[in-house]
């Protein structure tokens, strides 16, 4: 029997969103940790070294007890998928392995229906959240110093990760928006993401 672990996969574009993607995982994991969850957050090892524009996966795992299988390369069954860039819907089967009733959060200026048009297996979703995180954020953070297992030197959640994770809190009950705001460096952007999120239940 395997332990119940809530898996989150965050998709980002290489180099120009690598750091933002990592920040999203750290924000989410730290917020969940604050809420008493056991957490794990890491970059996909085989997607690194990342290249400009390549679709990248970042992972979060949340559980109510100590996570047993710490050494895994990928999240195979994400219940929550977050896209830092909306065009990824065309290129990847982003819902691959998702258990029925999952959630999708997309950084986009478009509507949920426009995005859903590109998702053939949308019946897996319980809901979809669209938020213009790029518009709500001050800037996109780019730096290499936290990659390859280095320590993140920049303030986590200063850019688009804050509103995006804020929006995710609207559909994910494993962490709260209060805790996301607590850990994000741009607190108002995190709250703004939560407030501006368009949720469509399916």
């Amino acid at each position, binding site marked *: 029997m395997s332990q119940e672990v809530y898996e989150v996969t965050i998709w980002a574009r*290489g*180099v120009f969103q690598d750091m933002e993607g990592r920040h999203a995982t750290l924000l989410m994991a730290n917020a969940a940790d604050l809420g008493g969850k056991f957490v794990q957050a890491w970059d996909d090892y*085989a997607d690194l*070294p*990342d*290249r*400009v*524009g*390549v679709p990248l996966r970042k992972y979060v795992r949340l559980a109510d007890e100590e996570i047993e299988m710490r050494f895994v390369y990928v999240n195979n069954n994400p219940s929550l998928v977050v896209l830092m860039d909306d065009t990824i819907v065309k290129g990847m089967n982003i819902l691959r392995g998702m258990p029925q009733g999952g959630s999708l959060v997309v950084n986009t200026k478009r509507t949920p229906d426009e995005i859903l048009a590109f998702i053939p297996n949308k019946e897996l979703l319980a809901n979809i959240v669209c938020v213009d995180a790029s518009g709500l954020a001050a800037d996109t953070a*780019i730096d*290499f*110093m936290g*990659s*390859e297992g*280095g320590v993140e030197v920049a303030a986590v959640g200063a850019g688009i990760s804050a509103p995006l994770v804020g929006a995710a809190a609207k559909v994910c009950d494993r962490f709260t928006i209060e805790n996301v705001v607590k850990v994000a460096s741009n607190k108002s952007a995190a709250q703004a993401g939560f407030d501006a999120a368009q949720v469509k239940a399916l």
Partner: protein
Amino acid sequence: MAIEVKTQNLEMVKSLRQVPQEEHYVPGHRTCQGCGPALVYKLVSKATGGNAIFLGPTGCMYVANTSYLCAPFAYPWMHTQITNGGAVASGIEAAYQVLIRKGKYKGELPSIVVMAGDGGSIDIGLQAMSSMMYRGHDALFVMYDNESYANTGIQVSPATPYGANTTFTPPGKNVPEGRVLFPKDAPQLVIGGHPAVHYVATASVAYPVDLINKVRKGLNYKGPSFVHLHAPCPKGWLFPAQKTIEVAKLAIQTGMWVNYTWENGEYTYDHTPKEYKPVKEYMKGQYRFNHLSDAHYAKMQAFIDARLKAPGKPIAIPVLGPREQ
């Protein structure tokens, strides 16, 4: 009786129309959007015409090109260690010499090309490169220069310019400029001290016809040649992917890069601007130089001004060593 070893004679191209449409470095590789080194690979592959064997020392152009059992090379290609590109190429060239001589391989000697990055050429790979040049193997050593160890996450190499922020030379309170040293001069390393070498050239992705012709000229020489190719790196230098060619051109307009040929002792210069722009214009478009002050730009300008007096030639450039600063 020993069979004579015949080599290829590749024709020069005069315009883009004469560049073959056929690709030998095919689409389907995991290099960055706008990757300068990938463009180098495409152009050098085109220049060979396909009757070639390529060696890929570890680096971006190994890892990104051949990620996960896919490789984009329509010709024989082999991975080598980052240390030994020149040596493996030597072994392959020697093998072909003897196999052709003995009649075991029928045909002209294929073009043998080492595609090494700056680290695989003039840092950890220097010994193997120099020895291949020295021994006189009929092979071409291409140094695609993206001025860092890009594959491992942008670490400093001997080709990294002064003032660059890399993940091993981050700017900080005690080291405000990040990278404090000035780069090694790769072509001079080859020109100075390898009697078997007759052809050394520098080229840039900004001038592809020139690049193709220089590669062909190097391949046509019976013996070793060295081509140093400027290949801007959108990831490592951090500029928008569409600006790769723009950045490469600006490098030439500011004197940060000079295209020239050294052939049997004679230097000729190509694409020299009438008047050089300040280096700051080149540097300010790249995130890796974002932290620099005007004093740092001035220091770089002084270095470039001195080097431009005789590009590619061994002249004394007033640069303080790290212990003198």
